[in-house]
């Protein structure tokens, strides 16, 4: 008689989910549960096509002090031997960060893998499922490493935005600069509200007061509280920063064609 480690019950005594006559078909839900996963799949696919197209384009990404986030840091002079678009040397970093992000995992497991597409909608059944326990999804556990490499890229994007304020020996301001700064704010809210960041700065502690065991200001607790504030809106940061990075790139692309649309304020 075989027995799992989880309980002392023999396999034959494990309960089974109810099937017909109480349950028939994938779900009893009557609402439009399919709308959300469909929209998410549509937007992800559209973003993926756009980003890939822009990376392949390998043109119209830099004008004056402005540099597209898809091509930042600008590596074309550092790796002249690289035969493809330099964007491919960079895009794997935000891609790996977003692909292993706990929010995006929920979104694409539902939308692309339909595991499950919505709550109580059982498209796939059977015991073959192993989730993130085995390859390739066990690699999701490397999310914190993606966070480590995404953070310097974010700092470089901040530098890209700030350097558009001062060039040719004087201060400048344009609508495009404001867009780049807004993009950095949204990306920062997303990056520093990440669950891995929340764990690293203090979530891993069981006791914020130990070992001194006295109630005073504790840096780990304060850092954890701050990241938690961002983390509570992680989904919103994820979406707004995804749109902002694409729109910033699009704006810079058209500014390369017509520099007047940067709308120089001074």
């Amino acid at each position, binding site marked *: 008689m075989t027995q799992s480690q989880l309980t002392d019950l023999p396999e034959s005594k494990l309960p089974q*989910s109810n099937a017909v006559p109480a349950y028939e078909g994938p779900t009893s839900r009557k609402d439009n549960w399919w709308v959300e996963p469909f929209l998410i799949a549509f937007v992800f696919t559209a973003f993926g096509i756009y980003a890939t197209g822009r990376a392949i384009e390998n043109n119209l990404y830099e004008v004056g002090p402005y540099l597209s986030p898809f091509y930042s840091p600008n590596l074309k002079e550092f790796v002249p031997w690289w035969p493809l678009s330099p964007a491919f040397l960079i895009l794997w970093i935000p891609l790996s960060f977003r692909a292993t992000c706990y929010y995006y995992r929920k979104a694409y497991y539902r939308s692309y893998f339909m595991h499950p597409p919505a709550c109580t909608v059982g498209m796939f059944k059977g015991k073959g499922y192993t989730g993130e326990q085995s390859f390739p999804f066990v690699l999701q556990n490397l999310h*914190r490493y993606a966070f480590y490499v995404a953070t310097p890229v974010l700092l470089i994007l901040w530098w890209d935005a700030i350097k558009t304020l001062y060039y040719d020996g004087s201060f400048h301001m344009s609508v495009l600069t404001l867009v780049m700064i807004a993009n950095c704010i949204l990306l920062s809210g997303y990056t520093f509200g990440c669950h891995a960041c929340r764990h690293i700065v203090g979530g891993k502690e069981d006791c914020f*007061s130990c070992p001194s065991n006295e109630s005073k200001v504790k840096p780990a607790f304060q850092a954890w509280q701050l990241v938690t504030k961002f*983390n509570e809106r992680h989904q919103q940061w994820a979406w707004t920063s995804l749109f902002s990075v694409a729109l910033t790139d699009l704006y810079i692309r058209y500014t390369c064609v017509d520099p007047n649309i940067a709308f120089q304020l001074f």
Partner: protein
Amino acid sequence: MPESNGRQATLKVYRGTKDKGEFQSYKVPVEAGMVVLDAIHYIQQNFDPELAVRWNCKAAKCGSCSAEVNGMPSLMCKSRMDSFKDGEDICVQPIKTFPIIKDLVTDVSWNYEVNKKIKAFSPSPDADWTIYQEDIERVQEFRKCIECFLCQNVCHVLRDHERKDNFMGPRFMVRVAGLEMHPLDEANRMKYLKDEGHIGYCNITKCCTEVCPEDIHITDNAIIPLKERVVDEFYDPLGKFIRGVLGGGKKK
């Protein structure tokens, strides 16, 4: 029951056992403030006293009246009748993941078997029991759990993939999180979480959080922090090396 304002609802209620049964329709007068559990009681009192339903407090605190209302797991005592449209059929089924005993009553005893294998709270014998609020706040959220098992019911790993042989489910990850994050607990349940509770089966689709009647942020505050702790122990060689050099990590 107060006088009806003339509005009626049609409830389609599952009647039968795991192997044999059907949905039966009942017309029930709707009153202000009425919940689905009231409608079920009306059916018991007026049409069918043999309708089986488990309930106790009618205040969303005992976790007994879990069911699926129009396909969504919910407590019948928290499902307001005025949230349904006029003329809409209201389908009431037992929870799917655990075997039906009769009508709306299911056998959830598997959960108690899982619970037995979790290492209990283990403070040091010489622990200082002065506890500050900031150290206990996270754990207090988990203590709100009323064990309605709606999260276990909605979890697709248990519900659709039948991994009751290997996967502990969200309820017990909440319990483990409450123990692991307790400032005085000294046990280490990481190996248990990874190799027996199989936390890796969870693909964080957040349905457990969506259905929790106590609004516990199961995924963000319990499961993901536990996953990160499992990463600390088993999937982060760099972090482990740094901790080895600098020290850190509290548990055996």
